[in-house]
């Protein structure tokens, strides 16, 4: 009974830790947390990276340790499973809405054909126009790509579909 209450508490705390690059979404929203195991007072959290080379993972790991320790969990162990796949298709609609709210266009549903996925029209998160074009499939971070809105003449980022 106590263990299950504590696992709930862990998930609750993890939901308060923002992604360092997209602060309106949490590590739980991003589906980065793959496992929570509570044993006595201790906890073991497993994370997976979004993109393999994501440099924010270090920071996330430290934040998880810090927040759980501050709540009294001891020992806190955080491991990263680098082999576990992650896809933007796992993100839910509220998470995508929060991305829009900071001017970040959310990722589209994936098919097997990346080129076709990148050709699907994207709505400008600033003015709502569909007159946009992909400037670069890459961007300022591994999980972003660069678009230009030809209506409001602003560039914007889109979360890179994976």
């Amino acid at each position, binding site marked *: 009974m106590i263990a299950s209450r504590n696992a709930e508490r862990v998930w609750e705390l993890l939901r308060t830790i923002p992604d360092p690059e997209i602060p309106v979404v949490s590590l739980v929203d991003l589906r980065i947390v793959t496992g929570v195991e509570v044993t006595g007072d201790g906890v073991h959290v497993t994370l997976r*990276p979004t*993109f*393999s*080379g*994501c*440099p924010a993972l*270090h920071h996330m790991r430290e934040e998880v340790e810090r927040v759980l320790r501050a709540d009294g969990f001891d020992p806190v162990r955080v491991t*990263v499973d*680098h*082999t*576990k*796949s*992650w*896809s933007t298709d796992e993100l839910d609609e509220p998470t995508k809405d929060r991305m829009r709210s900071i001017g970040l266009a959310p990722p589209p549903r994936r098919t097997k054909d*990346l*080129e076709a996925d*990148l050709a699907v029209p994207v709505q400008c998160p600033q003015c709502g126009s569909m007159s946009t074009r992909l*400037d*670069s*499939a*890459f*961007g*300022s971070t*591994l999980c972003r790509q*660069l678009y230009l809105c030809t209506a409001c003449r602003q560039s914007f980022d889109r979360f*890179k579909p*994976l």
Partner: protein
Amino acid sequence: MISNAPLVEFLTALADDELLIGHRDAEWTGYAPILEEDIAFSNIAQDEIGHGLVWYSLLEPMTGKTPDQMGFERPSADFRCCRFVTYPRGDFAYTVMRQYLYDEAEQVRLESLVACPSTPVRDAAAKILQEEAYHLLHSKGLVLRLGSATEESHGRMAKALADAFPQALGMFEPLNSEGQLIEAGIFPGNASLRVRWMDRILPVLRQATIPVESLGSHDATMKPDLGGRRGDHLPHLAQALSDLQSVYQSEKGASW
């Protein structure tokens, strides 16, 4: 069940290839001919180094060495990357051609691993393939455009292929434990991967109007640039590692 040694050799070669090509790609950060390419190659570099991390992390339980120790503490003779990924970045044509030839090779290699009996290897290959789709789309697109854009770009891409091709064959240099790895079903072997690779690059290079006649058929007579897989490297690797390892070596064990 396969003993660890062949798998360690195999994964070390994969990881070292990724780390070194990533390092060479990163040398374009701040220098690429246009901003979009600067961003693209910086991203690709970060991805490739991330893929190196994936493979090094799989090695950790077998070797007891952390990814940092693998990347930053080994001397060049212990690296098992092919020589191809150690060459200096060259001009942009060479960079694009190398990346394209490498990306296609990585595709066939990773696709072959999706059937590997080792679950973590299979999972890692599937994860990396997802991300690699962006690299191939980018490098193939540039080869197709630059191959036939102007007389100068055509000439430079043709020269880049002539320079890079014998080096690229070194990606398929057999490993010491090649036979054991094939027998255990880990991967189909480098000779087979090389045939699949040729089948993919030739139509693209032809479409890009880059001359391929001199490359010969599947049994290219051209002398492949071998040695890397047994630790026999050109001075380029030591040079790259002295840059790559300098900060870590200056204060071993420092935490960030």
